[in-house]
């Protein structure tokens, strides 16, 4: 049974059957996108450090599926003519003015993300004020997992007016910085040796000619800063690497008598007052 809700000479069919079919197409597209994302994620996890070769496909596949579904609904089910499409665009424009502007900006941001790929699923990025691993790039938002294991959905329009920092640019390796502060009277040379050894002996480190491990020293009035820089072989090990290096360095500092900075006397007095 076909009930024509509206029809015209061009043959556009806004029938109940077409509406139901459109809903079915959208649901199937959604399920298909989710299933393929899950399959690709599982495959990527099996590839360990090579997972980025698969991860970048996830948003592309999702956008292709959703775009295909939209085309199917508009062109085949409702058979919109050029005139109707223009009218639809006009209505859509009016809707934007009534409050869908941000949603469209998010969708366009998602398209730009797919085309430009400033980051991919699996990258460690700073979006807006949030830092974490990208676990999903959706049509409307990008989802991050922060180091505190919190899921954050960042709207895609952030891409247009905020800086995006990508820590690894789709490589498994990522530079990690671990800082230590020592008393100016401490043996800095020995401290540097300890930090350097701790970096290169960590189970999470990756060292090569292009990705060396280094330690720099900065002098200040009341303390000296040792910045150990090394790459982890998998960015997911960032926190574990920092923890492993810090723990062993602090143990070694303790046993070698390398002391942390003391609070200056003037600061003590200020605090006392």
């Amino acid at each position: 049974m076909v009930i024509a809700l509206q029809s015209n000479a061009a043959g556009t069919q806004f029938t109940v059957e077409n509406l139901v079919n459109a809903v079915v197409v959208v649901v199937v597209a959604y399920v298909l996108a989710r299933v393929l994302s899950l399959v690709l994620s599982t495959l990527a996890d099996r590839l360990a450090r090579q997972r980025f070769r698969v991860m970048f496909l996830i948003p592309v596949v999702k956008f292709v599926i959703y775009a295909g579904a939209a085309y199917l609904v508009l062109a085949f089910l409702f058979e919109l003519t050029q005139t109707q499409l223009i009218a639809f665009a006009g209505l859509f424009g009016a809707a934007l003015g009534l409050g869908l502007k941000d949603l469209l900006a998010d969708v366009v941001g998602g398209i730009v993300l797919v085309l430009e790929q400033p980051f991919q699923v699996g990258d460690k990025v700073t979006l807006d004020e949030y830092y974490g691993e990208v676990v999903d790039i959706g049509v409307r938002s990008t989802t991050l997992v922060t180091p505190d294991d919190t899921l954050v959905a960042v709207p895609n329009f952030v891409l247009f007016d905020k800086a995006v920092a990508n820590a690894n640019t789709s490589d498994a390796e990522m530079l990690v910085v671990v800082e230590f502060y020592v008393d100016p009277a401490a043996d800095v040379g020995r401290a540097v040796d300890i930090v350097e050894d701790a970096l290169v002996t960590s189970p999470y480190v990756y060292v090569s000619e292009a990705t060396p491990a280094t330690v720099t020293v900065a002098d200040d009035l009341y303390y000296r800063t040792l910045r150990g820089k090394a790459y982890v072989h998998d960015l997911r090990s960032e926190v574990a690497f920092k923890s492993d290096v810090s723990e062993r360095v602090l143990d070694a500092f303790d046993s070698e008598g390398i002391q942390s900075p003391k609070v200056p006397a003037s600061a003590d007095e200020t605090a006392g007052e």
Partner: protein
Amino acid sequence: MENDTVPVAGLRAAGFGDEVENVATAVAGYLDDGAGGNVAVISEPYAGRDSLLAYAASLLEEDATWIDLDPSAADGTGPPLPGDEDYVDPTDDETSDDETPDATDDGGDAPGAGAVIVANCHYLFERRIDGFEALDAFLDRIALSDALVITSWNRYAWSYLDAVRDVGDSFTTQVEIPRLDADEISAVIEGHYGPDLPDVIDAGRAGRVKTVVFDRHPVALPRGRSVGIPYPKPNTAWVASWSIAGDEESVEAVLYEKLRRVSNGNPGVAIATWDESVRDGEIAPGYVEAFTADIDLDTDAAVLLWTVISMERVDIDRVAAAWSDRPVETSLQHLVERDLVTVDGSAVSIRPEALHVAIGALERRGLLW
């Protein structure tokens, strides 16, 4: 020396001509002109690098001292070199002993500052803070020495040390033992066992290996029970061996090709796999089975496995003392349960058959470079 070494004659026959020549050239320079130099022979575990050292020792006769390092080498400053106070000159009659392989009574009269062969230099470091002191001291001393220093290194320890300590800069001659092809594996087997090899039989394609095998996937049930659901799984090792079947009619060719694939061209692993594959005095391609294991390891177990592969023979008590903050015993248990390592007292070593599966797992994790 390793037990699973391959005779140099076998290495020559197996096509290791370039590697043998590189070592011979360094030794000839010393014997003819007294030229010193530092030589590094690098290979995977079980790949037969000690055979190259033995070849160098045979050329040097009693001019060289042979030093085998063990895990305690990480405590010191490296082995003594000619000119050091504690160096024992092998040409000195009173101190000469049987440490030098193939020593003869010809007497050493080379014009150089001396020669020393140091096996297993990967024992000069431990992966911990201050674990490189012995290695650094040794590298400093060989840089200043005029002696001929021929050393051997585990390939994975070498890669690590080259990245973190630039160890390659200290060795003007580096000889890396390559992987063997099927014909070379055949030559190694014949060199190792002699001409009386087991009969090679054709056990029949269907009978010896199935193209698709059925494995069982465990599905958990209530009360801790589980049921295995069979699922088809391609036998990749066997399918791979088909690629040569069309070109080679000989069953032996298929056998050695499969042996090469399973051993990844490593002669020591090939010999161990051969031993495992002989049944009642016969061997067939289908009897050569690739090692399979579930290598889903946690970080501590993976690091211990890295240590075992890089050091080849690990004193577990020593590792436990160095890594007081890691569950070494538990990690070792994980490795033993997966048949990856063998334990002899406190000594732990990688099983030859498991070597490449373990290496593949660590490479995927980014632990092996």
